[in-house]
């Protein structure tokens, strides 16, 4: 098996997207231990001073180091996107497989709730919840997890419906196995691959969703900043240091594009 795998040529988009994602993951880890400058400290008296040696991406609207804040923001942005997607999958996979296996009343109720969630524009749901509860990292993660779990539920339920007629599932049920074992022990291992693909695409949606909330000023609150927040707070300095606003926006685009390309490449792989 390993010989076959090693002989297969990797597609350039797969290599490109994996490289970008690994690079950002490394930056996120490094930002925990070392940053070029203190992301909350002032390195320049001038707001939006252009890049010089040592301050490689210039200063932001308060005269802080853009590069350090960008690296710090990498960790915040990726942490939020990953936890929201993970939670969405935890909720969506469990309930989706449960709805498929149980059927009947449980399935009907869960499916109708999901219909309603999917029929609402996500960004508007986000704005309403922020209006009600105020904005914090945990509220934003919670909103993203709930709105995206509906789509995950649909996929997990469809996968579960295909599986539940399989002999080994029927056998497990007639053996009297508990529901938890049937869902996670018997079913989950067979649907890990499509769910993992969904995870990647869902994470790209989550990053765009949460950055948009931060960008309109209703996500992560200052002085902490994710990429969306940085892109917003530095909009005023486009004439002297455009990197302060464009840099974080490009970072979001890169991660989102890489995730989409990864899924495209994996899908193409699965088809051949």
């Amino acid at each position, binding site marked *: 098996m390993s010989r076959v795998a090693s002989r297969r040529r990797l597609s350039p988009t797969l290599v490109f997207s994996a490289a970008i994602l690994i690079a950002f993951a490394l930056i996120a880890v490094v930002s925990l231990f070392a940053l070029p400058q203190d992301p909350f400290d002032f390195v320049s008296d001038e707001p939006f001073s252009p890049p010089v040696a040592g301050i490689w991406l210039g200063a932001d609207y308060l005269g802080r180091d853009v590069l350090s804040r960008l690296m710090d923001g990498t960790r915040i942005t990726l942490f939020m996107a990953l936890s929201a997607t993970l939670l969405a999958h935890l909720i969506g996979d469990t309930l989706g497989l449960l709805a498929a296996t149980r059927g009947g009343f449980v399935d009907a109720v869960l499916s109708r709730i999901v219909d309603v969630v999917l029929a609402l524009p996500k960004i508007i749901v986000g704005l*309403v919840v922020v209006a009600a509860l105020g904005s914090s990292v945990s509220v934003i993660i919670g909103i993203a997890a709930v709105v995206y779990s509906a789509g995950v539920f649909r996929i997990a339920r469809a996968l579960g419906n295909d599986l539940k007629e399989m002999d080994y599932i029927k056998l497990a049920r007639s053996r009297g196995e508990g529901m938890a074992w049937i869902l996670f022990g018997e079913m989950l291992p067979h649907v890990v691959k499509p769910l993992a693909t969904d995870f990647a695409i869902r994470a790209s949606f989550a990053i765009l969703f949460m950055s948009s909330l931060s960008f309109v000023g209703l996500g992560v609150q200052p002085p902490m900043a994710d990429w969306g927040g940085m892109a917003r707070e530095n909009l005023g300095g486009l004439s002297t240091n455009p990197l302060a606003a464009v840099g974080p926006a490009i970072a979001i685009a890169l991660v989102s594009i890489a995730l989409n390309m990864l899924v495209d490449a994996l899908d193409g792989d699965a088809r051949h």
Partner: protein
Amino acid sequence: MAHFIAWRLLATLLLLFIVSLLVFWACEILPGDVAQVALGQYATPENVKALRIEMGLNQPPLQRYLQWLVGAVQGDWGRSLVTKSPVSGLLSERVANTALLAGITTLIAVPLAIALGVVMAMWNGRALDRGASIVILALSATPEFLLATLLVLLFAVNLGWLPAVAYLSTGSGLGQTARALLLPTASLVVVVTAQIARMTRAILGNILTQAYIEMAILKGVPGRRVVARHALRNAVGPIANVVALNTAYLVSGIVVVETIFAYPGLARLMIDSVQSRDLPVVQACAMIFCATYVLLILLADVMARVFDPRSLPQRPMDAI
């Protein structure tokens, strides 16, 4: 057909009713004491009590909900907590501005996207198709605010041709309005076009693998005719559906674009109201956005059905 439409209309009305319950719950029950929220944490207990009575918060929630719903259906959304003026007065101009932005974007993006998707399908598999596919994929995954920021940087900051802020006033002439709308529309058009073109390409690509297309090619029908005559005819339904669903993507794009350009639209009003926790205005804006979105999904379902009676109702894209 009539039966299908009546049934979907009923489901949509039920959905709107549930949405109204959720919006009311989120804005009036979830925050706890709305009077406290409106006055801030330094308000005296007497002030809070007076406002509670003024706002009718001492009445049971069900009664408040019914009053709100009856008012909303008649276009009376209550009074703003910040300006104290009727919410409906704030809305009308904002709704018109947002409808203008969304309308122009749709008019430009839809024909452009379908043309692009069809051309890419004609180049099926060639280097040009693959190149365009990657560009379209990248653009559809790019946040609106990156495109908008780059456009502002280029056309407003560096070249100075266009205003970075889209002021609209009733006095401004057509030329001025067009200049103000140019950059916001361009940012939205790029994203929406990329989304629709990508799906159009995928739909046509699927159809082109079918047996009757192979038959046509084997018969010697030229490639251009195969796409235009044979494939496109069956793609009209799914594409119409994609278009209706994609205008729903516009909602999130509009929220971002109105922020960057300080465009006086409904989304900007909603964001400002969320920031100042002006809950009656938030409620009204949320209901208008959700109702528009739900109606677009209804339109998508009906269109898919009209063009292809075999089709089951499609679900909305659950991306944004």
